[in-house]
């Protein structure tokens, strides 16, 4: 295997840099070949790029021979490092035996001007071939050199375009990666296992490349209590994402300090109001449901507080769907002396609870009306999901059915208590 010299390695690197050359061809380059042939009153012209062990013709005029002698002449021109002329191939001992010289089309004359990059690397050449031996005039060779310069300009433009497209593609991919990463930081990746409870969550984005402000979490509190929340920060994009992070961490921290749901929302409100004190109007705000689960004999006590958020819906074991919604909870972070309402309820064996963001209830049904809490309630009552997973599937089906009627992201958090299973009493087992 021949070793590649350092200058040749550097030249090949330049050829590879113009990677677009692989597919570089087209009318502009064919016109250059046509002009070269006309200037020399010759039947054949080509534009060639000399690679590692191939000579690639990227444009041609007059169906010239492309293999054998012609390839070696093009490679020789590049090695020669300047204008390269063979006046009569028959007088050249190496060329004389070539079929393209001896037979058809009977090439006798060859002239090449190098295509040289701005940093001096020869990529290939513009070549002219004639079937009669002849001299090459200075004027003709100057024109051939200018044409080679034109080819270089064309390749430079193509390379710049190619690079711009590549950079654009990289930037776009980077932005999408960032959006997905941010999204992951906003939603807990996996919900924890809560003894005696099933939990499932989903996020239905409307657009893959825009970060929404929906959030949720389920996490342990002191003793055997658990906290959960779900909400929506107004707005989209980076600002909403930053605010969503603040809201999530404030809710977690506030719950450690005082897990009373009303107090947690009041703390969040105070933090958001401070965050935007003296800021530009309009002030961003959020809506949220915060709850505490207290396990008891065969289910959970639930205390829920809400701030301006659509009602949580309980799907009871008997199929009844009812809101668990304290009336009057207001937007968080924007109002003076806001009111946050709180209510207590129970989740018994076989009951499920659905928390969702308004992307779901504000979706348009095929008739053009808003789905609203009533539409969602009716859908759940008909589907009768009996577990958190089934609830998630039911909502997924609904969102799919609504299709383009859904215009905002939707986050879903579903909780359920498994149905009671009849266990044999230990007394009867012991007697057996």
């Amino acid at each position, binding site marked *: 295997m021949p070793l590649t010299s350092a200058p040749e390695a550097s030249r090949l690197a330049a050829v590879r840099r113009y990677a677009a050359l692989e597919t570089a061809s087209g009318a502009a380059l064919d016109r250059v070949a046509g002009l070269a042939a006309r200037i020399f009153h010759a039947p054949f012209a080509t534009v060639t790029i000399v690679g590692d062990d191939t000579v690639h013709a990227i444009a041609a005029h007059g169906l010239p021979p492309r293999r054998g002698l012609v390839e070696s002449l093009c490679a020789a021109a590049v090695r020669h490092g300047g204008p390269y002329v063979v006046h009569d191939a028959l007088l050249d001992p190496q060329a004389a035996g070539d079929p393209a010289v001896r037979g058809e089309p009977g090439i006798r004359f060859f002239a090449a001007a190098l295509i040289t990059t701005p940093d001096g690397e020869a990529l290939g050449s513009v070549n002219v071939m004639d079937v009669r031996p002849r001299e090459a005039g200075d004027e003709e060779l100057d024109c051939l050199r200018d044409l080679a310069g034109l080819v270089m300009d064309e390749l430079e433009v193509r390379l710049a375009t190619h690079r711009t497209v590549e950079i654009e593609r990289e930037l776009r991919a980077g932005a999408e990666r960032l959006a997905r990463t941010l999204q992951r930081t906003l939603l807990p990746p996996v919900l924890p296992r809560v003894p005696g409870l099933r939990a499932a969550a989903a996020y239905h984005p409307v657009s893959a490349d825009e970060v929404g402000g929906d959030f949720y979490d389920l996490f342990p509190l002191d003793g055997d209590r658990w906290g959960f929340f779900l909400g929506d920060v*107004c*707005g989209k994009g980076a600002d909403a994402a930053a605010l969503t992070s603040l809201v999530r961490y404030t809710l977690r921290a506030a719950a450690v300090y005082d897990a009373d749901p009303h107090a947690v929302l009041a703390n969040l409100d105070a933090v958001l109001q401070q965050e935007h004190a003296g800021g530009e*109007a*309009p*002030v*961003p*705000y959020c*809506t949220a449901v915060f709850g505490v689960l207290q396990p008891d004999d065969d289910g959970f006590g639930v205390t829920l507080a809400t*701030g*301006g*958020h*659509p*009602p949580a819906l309980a799907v009871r074991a008997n199929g009844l769907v009812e809101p668990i919604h304290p009336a*009057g*909870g*207001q*937007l968080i972070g*924007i*109002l*003076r002396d*806001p*009111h946050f309402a709180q209510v207590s309820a129970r989740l018994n064996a076989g009951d499920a609870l659905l928390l969702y963001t*308004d992307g779901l209830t*504000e979706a*348009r049904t095929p008739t*053009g*009306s*808003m789905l*609203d809490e009533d539409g969602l309630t009716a859908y759940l009552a008909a589907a009768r999901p009996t577990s958190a997973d089934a609830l998630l599937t039911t909502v997924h089906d609904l969102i799919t059915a609504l299709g383009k009627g859904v215009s905002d992201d939707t986050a879903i958090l579903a909780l359920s208590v498994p149905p009671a299973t009849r266990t044999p009493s230990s007394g009867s087992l012991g007697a057996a």
Partner: protein
Amino acid sequence: MQHDNGLTVSLQPHTSGPHLLVVAGDLDHHTTPRLRAALEEVKFGPDADLVIDLSGLTFCDSTGIATLVAAHQRAADAGAALFLAGLDADIARVFQIMGLDQLLSFYDSPEEAVRALSE
């Protein structure tokens, strides 16, 4: 529902009774600055209340809501009332879920709102 992204805001001349601001079209983050600018023109006072006629409002996003809330606070600071009139049922429902019905009074028409103010 058609969203044409347009928003028109016009402040009716104040002769006697409250200011009347007529808002029609989509209220979103592109168009809300127009409403904010119009609201800044309003001089609130104990005898200068404001009725916003929203019967032509087709869409209202979070920036629109924040702007209405801010206007309400300015009115309250000046001892003036701010009433909303002619709100679309769906938008009224969203406002109610957000607890804004405790803050802003809703009336079916501007005439009704004006009447309520004069009582």
